[in-house]
């Protein structure tokens, strides 16, 4: 029994970093009031660029390239929604469509229909002394992103709640006009949050292609960006909450995959499709129960205009 749990935890922690980084990116941007529906597209671009870069340069640099690519797409989002006050959902959806079609086009013209060649395996690190401990040992033996994913949510939480910058970011998501009248730049804060979100989204995509999948496929990230949005909502727009939601979703997925190979009979009773739909159903259920008392930032999605109140 403990072995099963160990295996489940291990594969959860192996798979979760991409989801965590993407969800954190969404939290960062949305807490500052900018809707981040383009997350899936930013992940895709990050994944693609990192995979291509990883073929010619060290993995860590390649991940950096992926992050920059995510930020570049986020910059387009920022340009449209902050500079030109376009509808943030429209801009995000457009980026998703562009990234989807553009990724396919570039992939085909560079590598043909089968995706990129397989990438070198990421190095795995053991935590000394932990490997032999039951269950907790699942923490050991992962690649670097997993460890980062275990730390970053708490760092971001601290940034948002314990620093002047975090206070300002939260304020700009709830009441940008208050921030503007204090002589702070609404656009500047939002730009920072969106670019930071883009870097994190790109990191999520890069980790997905270089460490988790080991390649870029035609459909990468196959909806993971939307699960990350669900995790953000489920985690009530807080970094640690989104992290826990991501862990929960990833654990559910690991459980499903585990069951498929070890106990196919059980899946006759509870089909895989139902399990795959579960994160979304749970998020909907949570929102339904929460009702009007949503924890979304008050000014989320509202373009900032100086003259209006």
């Amino acid at each position, binding site marked *: 029994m403990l072995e099963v749990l160990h295996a489940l935890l291990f594969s959860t922690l192996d798979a979760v970093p991409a989801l965590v980084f993407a969800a954190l990116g969404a939290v960062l941007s949305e807490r500052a009031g900018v809707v981040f529906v383009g997350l899936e597209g930013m992940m895709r671009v990050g994944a693609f660029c990192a995979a291509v870069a990883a073929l010619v340069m060290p993995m860590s640099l390649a991940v950096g390239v992926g992050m920059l690519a995510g930020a570049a797409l986020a910059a387009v989002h920022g340009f449209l929604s902050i500079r030109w006050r376009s509808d943030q959902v429209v801009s995000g959806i457009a980026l998703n469509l562009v990234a989807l079609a553009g990724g396919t086009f570039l992939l085909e013209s560079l590598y043909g229909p089968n995706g990129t060649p397989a990438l070198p395996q990421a190095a795995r690190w053991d935590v000394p002394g932990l490997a032999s401990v039951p269950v907790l040992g699942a923490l050991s033996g992962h690649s670097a992103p997993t460890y980062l994913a275990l730390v970053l949510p708490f760092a971001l939480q*601290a940034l948002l709640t*314990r*620093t*002047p910058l*975090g*206070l*300002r970011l*939260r*304020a700009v998501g*709830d*009441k940008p*006009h*208050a*921030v*503007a*009248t*204090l*002589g*702070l*730049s609404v656009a500047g804060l939002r730009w920072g949050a969106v670019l930071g979100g883009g870097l994190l989204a790109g990191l999520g995509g890069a980790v997905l292609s270089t460490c988790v999948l080991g390649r870029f496929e035609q459909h990468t990230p196959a909806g993971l960006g939307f699960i990350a949005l669900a995790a953000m909502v489920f985690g009530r727009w807080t970094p640690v909450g989104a992290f826990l939601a991501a862990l929960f979703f990833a654990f559910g997925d690991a459980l499903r995959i585990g069951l498929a190979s070890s106990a196919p009979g059980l899946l006759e009773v509870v089909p895989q499709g139902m399990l795959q739909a579960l994160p979304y159903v749970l998020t909907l259920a949570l929102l339904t129960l929460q009702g009007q008392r949503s924890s979304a930032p*008050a000014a989320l999605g509202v373009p900032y205009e*100086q003259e209006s*109140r």
Partner: protein
Amino acid sequence: MSLEDASLDVSEGELLAVVGENGAGKTSLMNVLYGLYQPDAGELSVGGQPVRFKSPRDAIARGIGMVHQHFMLVPTLTVAENVVLGREPTRRGLFDLERAISEVAATCARFGFQLEPRARVDTLTVGSQQKVEIVKALHRGAQVLVLDEPTAVLTPQESDELAQVMRGLVAQGRTVVLISHKLKEVLGVADRVAVMRRGRVVAEVRAAETTVGQLANLMVGEGPRHGTEARAPTSLAGLSPAASRVEAIGAALPEAAVPIPGGQVTTGMSALALMGGVPPGAATERPVPSSEGTGPTGTVALAITGGTPLEASSERAPATSAGEALLEASGLQAVGDNGRPALRGVDLTVRAGEIVGIAGVDGNGQRELAEVVTGLRALTSGSGTLLGGPLAGLTPAKARERGVGHVPEDRLRRAVVKALSVEENVALGRHTRPPFARGPWLDFAGRRERTLALLEAYDVRPPDPTLPLARLSGGNQQKVVVARELDAKPRLLVVVQPTRGLDIGAVAHVQAKLREARAHGAGVLLVSLDLEEVLALSDRVYVLFEGRVTGHFTRPDYDERELGRRMLGAGTGHA
């Protein structure tokens, strides 16, 4: 909103009031002063030095603080966090909440504010939120404090308290600029008054040497002429000129004579001056050209043709004797948006051919009463009959069917859809009946014809039915609303704040139309925060306080003092 060649200067330790009608440019002027807008031309100097404010940050650095009409507070943060936002104390790079709390507590103590720094702002009353705003400015070392319509949302008690706060600040050597259109209040607290009209400062007078009537004339832009005083913009009246004369306060603090308390002044500011000049061409860039009363003459002509409202009505005999009861209600109770009881048992009657006014301080249930009668808000208890049907279970559609017309308070939110055309707005709410519809289809020809007729009759400018409503000025939008509601020949008309924010010509026009409706036998339920308007128009007045009727007056027995006492709760055992 725009400014054209506006000039203003304030001395240190002075309380300057800036008055003017809505749209006169008061708020624009202050936003320029605070660095939110950049002037196209002109200059600004602080302490004798010319300055350029590119953002509020520059203004704050030069000791200017602003309390906005709509509070600029982040509701989810605490008082302390709101106050220190943008200049947060840190310890090793982290936000030092404890120090923020003690700093804010110190500022509060120094200026005599009682605020709990740890309280979340959305749990505070409006009055306390305003104090947070003031503390926010003072905490940043504001020497010049600008307050934009600060009493609009306050109870009279809170307003009095604010007046004391302002005088206290002036006594400490700070300079206060108070923007208001409440002339009585202004004269009670200011040293000097600047009057703005159409983007210019047209006069500056010492508060001790003027009267409400004179100020009103200056605001409207006419020299003293017969009758204008009484017809001045609604909100400034309610007071006989003699009573509003201020003796003591204004005289006590001569201009720029207050010494600077030691150690408090950092910038050596002795005066603040703003000289404006906008090139003539700039006027055409205004997004919404005002089309009604484009010149002073136009305004006056309208005011006069409007029928010299006050005089006419005060000579009029009470019309309450006859008429069937259109609305009879007893024990009405309803819950407000905040979830607390807003109506706690209201009895009232409205008959055909009378205007019934509801007087009261803002937030005492007037709005909710109007919403109950128009079907927008459900009753929690009580009963009544409205035009032959029960008041319980009323919906807006049923109310309209029975013959209720409604001129709501919040025009842009409730009365019109800005993005629809003028004719579509004229049809809104009546679009199911001829001449606006034929069966399930809209009748474009009938709609156009009726709209053109109404635009003509109500003097809406420009009279273009296809224009998006947003392109009309506020006064013309309101005329469209009144035209639509009266054209439906309502048996009961519910009007809430019908003249707020309108220029004087439009005010007279709207008020004349209400009287006309009464003359044709309609009953009118008039809710207004402007006591003068209520008294001028109504045949009977109910006073509401905390959701109960605390007074009932019938023309001509209007005792303003007694009314005022009732508005503050006298006669209920609550006050």
